[in-house]
């Protein structure tokens, strides 16, 4: 009676928490990603930089299955993201995402924005969630703004609510898609401080960013993408000082 059962491979923390192997993505005839591979270990902070249109945002959106890949393998813990039978909801409970345009729900207050997903998606107790949501808003320094609607908050405040909203799901990995690109220069800092604290607490973070100094400070590893491939990567110390590829050098000379 010993029918062979195929159990999903068990993920252990010493394995990569996010793994991409030869990921391709085309929109129609336009190939945005031309074979991207990398590993992210638990607790690592990864920054993806590169010129506009190099496929950075598409790459990060593939990881939580907002964009389906054309070919290749993406693994988050033991979930096969490219599997046609993927349980998207299970994946997205593990992976939080913050967007460039905040995308808060405009008809809900800051507190309700943070509380909605844990209550309706995870079915958690409302009072317990509210307590946690207040703590999260305090953590992103927005105590007192619980009852404000997104339209009443500044860009930086909205983005911090969005981070709290994502954290309320207790994700294992956080994706940040150019989260400071739409902000005023003076509010960029408050958002970066929040992300830095998160990274210091050991959250696994993948950031697409144009903030080079921030990337240098915070990242364990930096990937430079151009035209759908990873041109160069390395820890910040070597990446910023000893870039070997001419495209990387040209990009860095323009932005630094």
């Amino acid at each position, binding site marked *: 009676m010993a029918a062979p059962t195929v159990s999903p491979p068990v993920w252990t923390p010493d394995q990569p928490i996010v793994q991409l192997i030869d990921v391709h993505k085309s929109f129609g005839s336009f190939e945005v990603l031309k074979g991207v591979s990398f590993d992210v270990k638990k607790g690592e902070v990864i920054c993806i930089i590169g010129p506009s249109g190099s496929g950075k945002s598409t790459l990060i959106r593939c990881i*939580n299955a*907002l964009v389906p890949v054309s070919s290749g393998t993406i693994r988050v813990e033991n979930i096969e993201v490219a599997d046609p039978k993927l349980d*998207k*909801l299970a994946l*997205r*409970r593990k*992976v*939080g*995402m913050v*967007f460039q*345009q905040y*995308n*808060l*729900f*405009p*008809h809900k207050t800051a507190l309700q924005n943070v509380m*909605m*997903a844990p209550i*309706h*998606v995870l079915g958690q107790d409302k009072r317990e969630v509210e307590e946690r949501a207040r703590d999260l808003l305090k953590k992103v320094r927005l105590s007192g703004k619980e009852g404000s609607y997104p*339209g009443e908050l500044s860009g930086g405040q909205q983005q911090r609510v*969005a981070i709290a*909203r*994502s954290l309320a*799901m207790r994700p294992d990995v956080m994706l940040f898609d150019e989260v400071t690109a739409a902000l005023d220069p003076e509010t960029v800092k408050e958002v970066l401080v929040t992300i830095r604290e998160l990274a210091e607490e050991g959250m696994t973070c993948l950031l697409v960013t144009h903030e080079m100094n921030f990337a240098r400070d915070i990242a364990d590893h930096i990937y430079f993408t151009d035209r759908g491939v990873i041109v160069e990567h390395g820890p910040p110390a070597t990446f910023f000082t000893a870039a070997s590829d001419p495209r990387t050098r040209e990009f860095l000379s323009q932005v630094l």
Partner: protein
Amino acid sequence: MSAEPKTGAPLAVLLPFKVETTRLSAPRLAPVHAALFGVGLALLAGTAWAQSGAAQLSPLEVIVKWAPLLLSGFVFNILISMVAMALGTAAGLGLGLAMLAQNPLLARVAWALTQFFRNAPWLVLLFFVMFLVPFQVTIFGVRIPLPDWAKATVGFSLPVMANVAEIVRGAVRSVPSTQWEAAESLAFTPRQIMWRIILPQCVKRMLPPWMNLYALVAMATVQASIVGVSEMLTLTAQVHTAEGGRPELFAPLYGFALLCFFLYCYPIDRFTARLERRFQIR
């Protein structure tokens, strides 16, 4: 011949920028206009009556005499319009969501239904329902009579359904796709996203066109008189006959019906316009 302009006014570009206060809509009637309209009708009735012999009831007296009956007919119009609106809104919400369904077949069928009922004359739909639906239905041995007014209500709810479906579809489409992305990334199911996140944002956008539609339905209910429902227009014709069909009563009696509908629909129109303006500013 100096090139300097004679007036001391500075160049236009140097003037402080001033936003032209434009009215968002054509000049609107005020309630006082409605009152004037009513007085005008009464005067008209009075002069028409003055030209005839004084032995009969004056038009005003006729209206006062029959007002309870006529107004009960008007209440019936309102009732039909409200039930048709409720039925049509419920069905239209379903049809509108079906048009947005992932299933292409369902979406196509819903789209075809919407287009069909949106582009059919209301009166023709009314005739179809009146003559195709039996006067009673038997369900599990229980006979349920279907009076004319109930059938007429269903007849009006069909175009309402199609128009509401279009309103729902347009409103849902107008919500930025980034709202879907954000909700999806929080592991909401498509159904939860629609009902908890998208539709609540649509209510504001849907309310003005929905109220406009209601005013149209309220006015359209008089078409039920053609298929024999005893609503206000039918009763007005009967009252006219009962008063001997005097020609000078025609304008006052039908004018009274016009006034009733105007006084009912005009405030709705005003309120809708105000809502629209408020939502535009936000």
